[in-house]
């Protein structure tokens, strides 16, 4: 049992007593000071404060910053700001401001203007936080409100910057749009955002919002009974956001947009030398300016319910079976693994049998004896069924992953999808059933479980074109401060290496050249006269492989069941500069539909600038039309 005697064997108790008395006196003085101050505020200045409290005369005003500009690689401004006039209302319960809204409605009616705000004022509205009655109103309304300001206490016009998308629909799914912060975002924002803040909702606007947004300013003003400012009590200037310079070339982007007009799908143009995105178009697009002044419910509903999903950027989030464009990877795997040589021949009589199932070649008459070169040029399916079966699904997957498939490419945009490269393990885990050999057969011509995005497709071929470097595609070249200084530069980033032997590359390179340039090649429609283009067509089936090919062909397919058309290419043959991938949804065959689209983009890149100067190009333009027939 412990029994400690806590003798005050330190300082004398008297000493502490003395100290406590001092502490007591100091505290008494300090707390009396509070009483004096309280008396001063309430008794001496009480009447003055009472009047102020009745007027609610001090107002807090948020000053919105200008969002940074968005420019193309040559400094052409794609996204700017413009002033928007909003009609605001302060629901001060003391002063019968409710009448103001009725008066405003009458004023509008006399001029036959429409009053768009039909909600009732929420009871939870804070009296010092203005409510937005109308956004982005016409100058006529602004003039009307300003001239009648004295009759409309509580109502005033506020100017704030909003986005102006100069290129309209051209880059909308890529750049995105802005809008007022949603309730959920506000609650999760950890105090970094405030009510009514504008932020990027999609694309570049969202991904780089932290840079583009700038910083809020605010001011504290004293106003008179009419709401007119009489004294500025303090002000913090807003800070404009940083400008974003894209790797996009506006001219090429326009060409891509025009080439895809009336289609659903996407086109991606990469600089094969460093992975920068020169153009990225997703069709159909939308008008991002709709979102500026708050999109109406009908408009939003229409965009949301459109089966062609104009809001999504199909170049990075559309996932499609790669079809025959996948054959490059299967061929590379087979060559590298020593399963075939360029001279290995396979007999194609139009179909391939495994067990009791028959897999057809797209050419029902068969290609006869084909070697690798011919198999790629003419896109023989039976050749790849045979090779794929020898490789096995996991070997194919191993090479597909080297080409950057089966995982996001890592572009600087939100919502990128990773596609799918199936393996035996994947199927057991996700589908709870073992891999079937027949599925390998489908995989080897890019059907079945395989999924890729247009961006991944362009990037894979770009890596092949540049001799084996898989770059991380990027859309932003640099971020500059408002005074034009580079704030942050994005240099090309290596994502991986294909590790293919020079021999393999040479063989396949020549085959891909043949696809576009040799008689019988499936990609003829992409041919340019002055530039040597290499490419691969693809036609991916939306329906599973049908039992009876003939019946399928004969049947008129509903639009949404038609094949996706794919074409991917790079040019020129020597020292390739660009890689282009085009995927058109439910459009038909890749060679017939997608290749001509790619050709227009290639033509714009290689001949676009010349076109302005020289007339002989016109002849070039007409020739490929003949080739198509």
């Amino acid at each position, binding site marked *: *049992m*412990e*029994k*400690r*005697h*806590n*003798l*005050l*064997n*330190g*300082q004398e108790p008297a*000493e*502490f*007593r003395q*100290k*406590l008395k001092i*502490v*007591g006196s100091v*505290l*008494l003085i*300090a*707390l009396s*000071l*509070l*009483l004096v*101050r*309280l*008396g001063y*505020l*309430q*008794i001496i200045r*009480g*009447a*003055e*404060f*009472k009047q*102020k*409290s*009745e007027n*609610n005369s*001090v107002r*807090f005003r948020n000053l919105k910053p200008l969002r940074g500009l968005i420019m193309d690689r040559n400094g052409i401004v794609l996204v700017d700001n413009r002033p928007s006039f909003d009609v605001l209302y302060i629901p*001060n*319960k*003391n002063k019968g401001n409710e009448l103001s809204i009725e008066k405003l409605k009458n004023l509008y009616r006399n001029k036959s203007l429409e009053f768009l705000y039909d909600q009732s004022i929420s*009871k*939870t509205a*804070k*009296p*010092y936080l203005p409510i937005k009655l109308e956004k982005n109103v016409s100058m006529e309304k602004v003039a009307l409100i300003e001239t009648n300001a004295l009759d409309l206490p509580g109502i005033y016009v506020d100017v704030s910057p909003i986005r102006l998308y100069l290129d309209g629909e051209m880059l909308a799914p890529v750049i995105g749009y802005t809008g007022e912060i949603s309730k959920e975002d506000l609650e999760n924002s*950890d*105090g*970094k955002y405030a009510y009514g803040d504008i932020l990027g909702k999609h694309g570049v606007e969202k991904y780089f919002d932290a840079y583009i947004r700038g910083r809020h300013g*605010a*001011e*504290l003003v004293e106003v008179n009974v009419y709401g007119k400012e009489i004294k500025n*009590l*303090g*002000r*913090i200037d807003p800070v404009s956001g940083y400008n974003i310079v894209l790797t996009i070339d506006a001219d090429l982007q326009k060409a891509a947009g025009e080439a895809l007009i009336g289609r659903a799908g996407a086109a991606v143009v990469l600089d094969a030398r460093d992975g920068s995105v020169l153009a990225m178009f997703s069709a159909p697009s939308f008008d991002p300016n709709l979102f500026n002044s708050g999109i109406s419910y009908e408009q939003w509903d229409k965009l949301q319910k459109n089966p062609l999903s104009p809001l999504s950027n199909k170049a990075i989030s559309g996932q499609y079976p790669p079809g025959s464009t996948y054959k490059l990877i299967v061929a590379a795997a087979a060559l590298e693994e020593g399963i075939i040589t360029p001279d290995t021949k396979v007999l194609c009589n139009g179909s391939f049998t495994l067990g009791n199932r028959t897999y057809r070649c797209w050419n029902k008459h068969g290609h006869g004896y084909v070697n690798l070169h011919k198999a790629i040029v003419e896109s023989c399916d039976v050749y790849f069924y045979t090779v794929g079966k020898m490789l096995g699904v996991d070997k194919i997957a191993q090479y597909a992953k080297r080409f950057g498939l089966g995982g996001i490419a890592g572009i600087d945009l939100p919502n990128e999808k990773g596609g799918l490269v199936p393996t035996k393990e994947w199927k057991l885990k996700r589908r709870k059933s073992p891999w079937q050999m027949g599925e390998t057969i489908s995989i080897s011509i890019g059907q079945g479980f395989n999924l890729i995005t247009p961006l991944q497709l362009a990037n894979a071929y770009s890596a092949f074109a540049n001799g084996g470097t898989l770059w991380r595609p990027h859309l932003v070249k640099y971020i500059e401060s408002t005074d034009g200084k580079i704030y942050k530069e994005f240099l090309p980033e290596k994502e991986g290496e294909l590790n293919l032997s020079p021999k393999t590359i040479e063989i396949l390179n020549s085959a891909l050249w043949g696809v576009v340039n040799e008689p019988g090649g499936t990609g003829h429609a992409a041919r340019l006269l002055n530039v040597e283009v290499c490419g691969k067509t693809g036609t991916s089936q939306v329906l599973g492989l049908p039992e009876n090919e003939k019946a399928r062909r004969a049947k008129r397919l509903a639009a949404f069941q038609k094949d996706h058309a794919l074409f991917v290419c790079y040019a020129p043959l020597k020292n390739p500069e660009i890689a282009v991938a085009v995927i058109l949804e439910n459009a038909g065959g890749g060679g017939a539909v997608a290749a001509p689209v790619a050709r227009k983009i290639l033509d714009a890149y290689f001949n676009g600038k010349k076109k302005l100067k020289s007339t002989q190009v016109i002849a070039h333009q007409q020739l490929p039309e003949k080739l198509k027939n």
Partner: protein
Amino acid sequence: MIFFKFDRRIFQHFDWMLLGLVLCVCAIGTLNIYSTGFSASEGQSHFYLKQIQWIALGLIFMMVIFFIDYRVIIQGAYVIYGVSIVFLVFVFLFGYAAHGSQRWLGIGGFAFQPSELMKLVIIITLTRYFDDHKSNEPYKLKELSVPFLIVVAPFLLILKQPDLGTALILIILFVSIVFFMGVDWKSLIIVLAGGLISMPIGWHFLKDYQRERLITFLNPENDPLGTGYHIIQSMIAVGSGEIFGKGFLKGSQTQLKFLPEQQTDFIFSVFAEEWGFIGGLVLIIMFIAIIFWGLKIALQARDLLGTIIAFGITALISWEVFINIGMVLGILPVVGIPLPFFSYGGSAMLSLLAAIGLLMNVSARRFILQR
């Protein structure tokens, strides 16, 4: 164990006066919270009900602490300190944020703020240290380094949240207790200089927005809007109450929700608006009474332990009252420090009622312990 032995004398010396004063302030505070939540158009919010629950829970806490001899509690001081530090680290790792600061730990549906508890824990821990290191001489640098470290660890963790008000209170408590124990002036200057020098190092640990807050705190002119707005609105509310106040539930600044942080840091301005100078006077006098009662307990305590504890707790209450009301009246910068027993907030209420339990503990046992 003698410390747990039931002793009738602790009831004979039960400090009804202190309990009565504190409950009075709590009751007025709850009424006041009722007023902030009341709005003619919306009816009543639930804040005051929650506050009543916290007070009830706090009273249970208080009684539990009252029954355990304070010498036993001080024996466990270092363990309590360790556990509290672990709580703060938990906040840092898993805590959730509100109003831009990561202060809360969710425990079974309740949100708990370990930093509030830390205020009391620091008092206990420093008491233990100084009781272990009694000295006739003023304390020198060497002896002060350990208590300094005891305070700096939670200080940095709380600063990081960031909760400048609470962090500041810890430093103020340290300085107060050290002064009370007696300090060698030269050592004190060296400690303060050391603190000043280490500031730039701490600066590196802070995020941009945390730095901004610190700058705003040190220089309110930097943010004439946020805090400036609060102060102006607060002064208008207080001043407009005049001598007799606008009456219960009738404060227009409050009812129109002009005031920021009405239930918490700026609660006094709500009270002053509705009850006027008379109300404010009564409330401040009640606080003065609690504080002097605390000093009386420190004076009458039968051992050094009791004296330091009682002094520390009284210092905590005094500083919080002074800083909070001073801030509301516009004579001190805006820091997030609640008004004891008055502001809405469970963690602060629990810690403060626990502190009162400890104070009554010292008070009731002043005749029991032999010298």
